[in-house]
């Protein structure tokens, strides 16, 4: 068992019994369920929209090389810079060097999971650079020195009261606890940051190949401030985010918004194609796009699971997942949590370290059902399990147990006799009131559930008796 696996088991077990947290998460997700349902109903044909998005993403991923080069060329033509980062370290180094050479002291950031993935904030801070998260949710978790709880809703796990308390401690000036007042407190702090920052860092929801633009979606307008006010704009984006054509956004934007938050379209959708051009009155002097691989090409090489790169990070699978609903995002201990995280983390960070996440699922398929780009998520969890067994990454006890179980099942007579013996032993144990105690042979089951009454006769025995076989 890897250290990550042990930690996950511990954290997930603890979070699973955190009733207060579960209530908060439930309330948040129940609200999403409601509005996403309404949002889907606004489409003439939601299933057709999903299918179209699936096809666009498939086309992009299957011709990633071509579309990325096209994107790069067009950005360069407009005077932007494109850096190809194979690893997280290369991406960090590029940003740090850029910041150092430009004398950057303050950075404003909009929400970016890729920046989380490469641990950019920590790296900038270690060079004495002040980093401001400007998405409200990210700003809140940054004040708490926490990673985002959810890829779309970073502060889903906090109540308004907790946020008010946090602002009082860290910012001051909190006069009321209603959302507009709290937003005003955050805005006062962030506005100052926007005007003092020398560098703005954003992610991007899409890279548009045919027009060489990045598309950024946000609800607070903070991303476009990050992209336009500071002297330097750096966008850090996973290579899988490319789409072939500008017109593809006509369906991807509303589908992303609907699947994620139930909105018809997100409030601010910004396209950025390069630095300020001659004659333009605003915009950054420098525009850099860091294209991050960091394991994505490994996933691309996996024909079975390549489609996991279709993901548009809407968060729908997290909301739908009963495991996520029960333990929340932090317990996963990964940048990407929920079903999509469990699918891709083994490719980004190694199967040995992250295979356990693929087992922490009932394979219920709710994720696959809601995915707006039709990724067969629960099937990929199963494939990760198969790969873990093939690479001999499973515990010895499980291997032995599985072999013994299979041996018993290969012969009906053997199965009948062994099952009878087990049943009789259980009846004896439960007759002695051992249910749920340390001596209970089925303790993994009975620790949390009552044991079923163990029948004296099996179905086949009764059948043979009454029907004669």
């Amino acid at each position, binding site marked *: 068992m890897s250290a990550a696996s042990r930690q996950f088991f511990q954290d997930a*077990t603890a979070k699973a019994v955190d009733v207060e947290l579960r209530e908060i998460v439930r309330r948040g997700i129940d609200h999403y369920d409601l509005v996403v349902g309404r949002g889907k109903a606004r489409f003439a044909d939601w299933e057709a929209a999903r299918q179209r998005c699936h096809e666009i993403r498939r086309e992009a991923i299957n011709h990633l090389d071509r579309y990325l080069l096209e994107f790069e060329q067009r950005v360069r033509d407009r005077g932007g810079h494109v850096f190809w980062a194979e690893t997280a370290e290369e991406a960090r180094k590029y940003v740090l060097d850029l910041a150092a050479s430009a004398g950057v002291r303050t950075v404003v950031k909009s929400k970016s999971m890729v920046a989380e993935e490469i641990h950019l904030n920590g790296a900038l801070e270690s060079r004495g650079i002040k980093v401001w998260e400007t998405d409200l949710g990210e700003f809140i978790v940054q004040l708490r020195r926490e990673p985002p709880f959810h890829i779309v809703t970073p502060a889903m796990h906090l109540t308004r009261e907790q946020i008010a308390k946090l602002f009082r401690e860290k910012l001051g000036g909190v006069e009321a606890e209603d959302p507009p007042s709290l937003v005003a407190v955050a805005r006062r702090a962030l506005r100052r940051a926007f005007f003092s920052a020398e560098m703005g860092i954003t992610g991007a929801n899409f890279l548009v190949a045919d027009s060489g633009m990045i598309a950024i979606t946000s609800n607070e307008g903070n991303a476009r401030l990050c992209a336009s006010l500071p002297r330097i704009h750096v966008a850090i984006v996973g290579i899988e985010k490319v789409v072939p054509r500008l017109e593809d956004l006509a369906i991807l934007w509303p589908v992303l918004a609907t699947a994620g938050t139930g909105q018809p379209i997100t409030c601010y959708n910004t396209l950025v194609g390069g630095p300020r051009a001659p004659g333009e009155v605003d915009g950054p002097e420098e525009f850099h796009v860091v294209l991050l691989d960091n394991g994505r090409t490994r996933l691309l090489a996996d024909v079975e699971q390549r489609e996991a790169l279709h993901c548009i990070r809407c968060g729908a699978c997290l909301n739908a997942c009963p495991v996520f609903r029960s333990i929340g995002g932090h317990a996963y201990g990964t940048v990407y949590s929920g079903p999509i995280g469990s699918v891709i983390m083994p490719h980004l960070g190694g199967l040995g370290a992250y295979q356990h996440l693929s087992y*922490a699922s*009932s394979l219920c398929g709710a994720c696959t059902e809601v995915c707006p780009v039709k990724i067969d998520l629960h099937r990929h969890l199963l494939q990760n399990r198969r790969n873990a067994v093939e690479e001999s990454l499973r515990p010895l006890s499980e291997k032995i147990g599985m072999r013994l179980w299979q041996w018993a099942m290969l012969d009906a007579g053997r*199965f009948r006799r062994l*099952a009878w013996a087990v049943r009789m032993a259980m009846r004896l144990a439960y007759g002695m009131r051992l249910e749920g105690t340390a001596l209970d042979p089925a303790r993994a089951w009975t620790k949390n*559930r009552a044991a079923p009454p163990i029948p004296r006769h099996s*179905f086949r025995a009764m059948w*043979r008796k009454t029907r004669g076989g």
Partner: protein
Amino acid sequence: MRKVALFIPCFVDQLLPQVGLDTARVLERLGFETWFPDEQTCCGQPAFNSGYWQLARPLAERFARVFACADAVVCPSGSCTTMVRHFYPELLAGTREFAQAKSLSARVYEFSEFLTDIAQVTDVGATFPHKVAIHDACHALRELGIREGPRQLLRGVQGLELVEMTHSEECCGFGGTFAAKFAMISATMGATKAENAESSGAEYLTSTDPSCLLHIDGILRRRHSPVRTIHLAGILARTDSAGSETRATK
């Protein structure tokens, strides 16, 4: 096709024999002749879902041979039906048994699906004067597309009041070996299901899948809940209101 082979999942055989008997009883009442291939053991799903496809393969091959001569195979579990229908062809691709598995996958039916789609009945002549909620089992719902069938069958039961519970389509947390590997998460999901069942006002919670019910029943009884569980076959087998105190797990 008046003769159907019973595919009684291994854990139903050993722990919930009544579910098997009820399944046969309903089918026979509708005029089908039933038989139980005595050589059957497990379809291999626990190994398959745990990633041990090499170990699951011989069990799948064995299963395909045991049921080779059956015209129709009926199983009181959507999950085990899914294994045979959807996963056997994938698991046995390239083996000698592939053709057999492929043909078997088209002849295996989940119990309620067999009643509504093949036998084409919605009133099986049952009586069950109770308030009943239904839990949509994941495999039946999402892999086999079974949602309305069980409800139609329940609406056909005399005296039965069908109530819809909140989040009936959310997983109960059983998930096979998941229930033991991540017992706490599984129990939390089960508790959510139990709360929803309780607030629905139902006396009984039913489902197409006995594995879900085994887990939910354990959770309900541990919390001394008034809600009981009963497999769909158990309800459809009842022809009078007597004996309604029997638990699904007895």
